[in-house]
């Protein structure tokens, strides 16, 4: 059986130009640099990585908001990178995105009703009465009172806005949802509400989802599998609990060690891996493994060759050459 969503060697590079008249390309930012990934239907994949590693670019590339430089996004057997733009447009109802910033992702001049009605009618036109009812139901579904549908986004709080954004993403009845850090702009007390809402709805509506976050503890809570991204590439992939409890890649280990433990005694005793330096520039990534300048276990071989994502255990993949040694 073919996979629901497949990413084949997906790349998104942004050329850098210099010169006004004789413009020449002097390099490119390799924001997404060869991602291979398969998702089953109904699966929730958590994607983690630090700022600037290309998570959001990957999301926008899958969403066809950014042109693919190379590779393919294959949704239910259809290669979205190859079909015409018009065909992509009709296909868009099947994959929707929840954006990071609920203050920027809603049109300030459209009422909730207008925004949701527009999203609902992407699949099918409804008459006014039915539409009104559908919008009302949708608002209920995401936990908003239906009688507030004539309000504008600025009349809602951040958490409520994100609920509206979730409702809009669900309105076209998509099969795939890409949630790009949907809770990172929210207050901590609101984060869990939105997280629970997304988890509940994705389960009830049998959605396939890619959930992006820089916080591995958030991702662990919601996902079936976790993919760890570093500088445009995947470094680890595996079932959520296993990746968090027994990380294979040193970068994942560092991420996991950054999760605070709510027990002060344990918290004080445990060892934290503090990574030195900043992530290297995606314009000129270091030779070999991109992580080696910051890796506590780096050896000479790490600089020589770039490790590919390989299966290390059952269901578990990592891009590290020293697995088994340490």
């Amino acid at each position, binding site marked *: 059986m073919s996979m629901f969503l497949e990413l084949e060697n997906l790349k998104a590079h942004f050329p850098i130009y210099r010169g006004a008249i004789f413009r020449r390309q002097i390099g490119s930012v390799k924001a997404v640099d060869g991602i291979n990934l398969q998702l089953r239907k109904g699966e929730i994949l958590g994607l983690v990585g630090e700022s600037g590693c290309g998570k959001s670019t990957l999301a*926008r590339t899958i*969403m066809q*908001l950014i042109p693919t430089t190379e590779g393919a996004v294959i949704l239910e057997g259809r290669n979205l990178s190859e079909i015409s733009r018009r065909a992509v*447009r*009709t*296909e*868009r*109802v099947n*994959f*929707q*995105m929840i*954006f*990071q*910033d609920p203050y*920027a*992702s*809603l*049109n*300030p*001049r*459209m*009422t909730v*009703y207008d925004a949701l009605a*527009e*999203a609902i009618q*992407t*699949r099918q036109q409804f008459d006014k009465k039915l539409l*009104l*009812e*559908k919008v*009302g*139901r*949708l608002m*209920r*579904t995401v936990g908003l*009172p*239906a*009688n507030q*549908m*004539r309000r*504008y986004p*600025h009349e809602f709080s951040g958490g409520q806005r994100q609920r509206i*954004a979730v409702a*809009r993403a*669900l*309105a*076209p*009845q998509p099969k795939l949802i890409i949630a790009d850090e949907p809770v990172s702009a929210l207050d901590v007390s609101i984060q869990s509400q939105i997280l629970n809402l997304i988890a509940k*709805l994705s389960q*009830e*509506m*049998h959605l396939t989802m890619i959930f992006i976050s820089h916080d591995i503890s958030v991702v662990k809570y919601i996902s079936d599998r976790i993919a760890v991204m570093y500088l445009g590439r995947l470094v680890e992939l595996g079932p959520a609990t296993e990746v968090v409890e027994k990380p294979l890649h040193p970068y994942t280990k560092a991420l996991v060690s950054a999760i605070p433990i709510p027990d002060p005694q344990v918290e004080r005793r445990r060892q934290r891996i503090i990574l030195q330096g900043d992530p290297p520039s995606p314009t000129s990534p270091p030779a070999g493994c991109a992580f080696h300048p910051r890796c506590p276990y780096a050896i000479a071989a790490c600089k020589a060759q770039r490790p590919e994502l390989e299966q290390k255990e059952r269901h578990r993949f990592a891009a590290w050459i020293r697995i088994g040694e340490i």
Partner: protein
Amino acid sequence: MATGTASIEPAPIRADELVQGTSLWKDAWFRLRKNHVALFGLYTFCTIALLCLVVPFFTGYTYEQTEISLKASAPMEPIFLRTEARKAGEPKKSFIALSNLEDEFLEKSQSDRKAIVAKIAEGEVYQEGRNTYQRSSQRHVFGTDPLGRDLLTRVLVGGRISLAVGFAATLVSVCIGVLWGATAGFAGGKIDTVMMRFADILYALPFTVIVILLMVMFGRNFILLFVAIGAVEWLNMARIVRGQIISLKNQEFIEAAISLGLPSHRILFRHLIPNVIGSIIIYATLTVPNVMLLEAVLSFLGLGVQPPLSSWGVLIDEGSRTMETSIWLLVCPAIFFSLTLFCLNFLGDGLRDALDPKASKD
């Protein structure tokens, strides 16, 4: 198709929860009504427009009717009737303003002249040779211009032209400018470059040359006025709108609209343009006076309104040349002109706020 949203909704929606919305314009009007300055602008402007439309029928004069002997009489200046008896036919009647009455008796001494004028002013009928002088009940509220035409009528009739030109040309420039700028900004890349370079080329052409070319091609025509002004004024609007659209189109809500698979024109008209409407309105209210003054320039070149018809721009232009001797010729049209612009600015400001849903509802 499985209705995913329906299956997980337990309770049905009560009818009272489905709030009927008010339209954007109704909403805007509701907010505008609370803005007293804007309302003052709106009402004053409507009054001016109504005056221009209606009052010329009731002034008793037409804008073209000359009275050479009256010359430039001041507002409400007493006017006298001179009846010149002729050997054959009807006596010739003409009107003379108080300030010019003394000049009728130049052969007399200065003190005599004063006495005669005073007598006539008191209501006496005075005979001097073939001429009979007597007081007349005729008055010109705004005075008259050097040809003795009633200024009030001319200002109001000119107002019709000015308002028509101001609004029609602004409308033309807003329509072209917004569409052009929004399309260029939204499309970006090569399309943007080509469209904006075309606008630059038009901008670089001297305005008068375009106008003269148009005149040669189409001859004198009032409609051409709108075309010529519209063709120049939309360039600024296009640039402003393009800049705003470019800064807007990378916002996440536009990405969200693209993600929904909405067609480009819908994204443009429903998501982008409503968000730049504030700038559009403000710039449009600034365009109206520009257009009215441009019309005066065109009229001077012979393309705009032709005498005896007039407009505020032309009247102000003429008035400024005689301001040392007859200031009212400048002041009267200028008051109407500035009052209109004030009102439009207040109204534009109010409209911008009223159309912004973030402005509080109550």
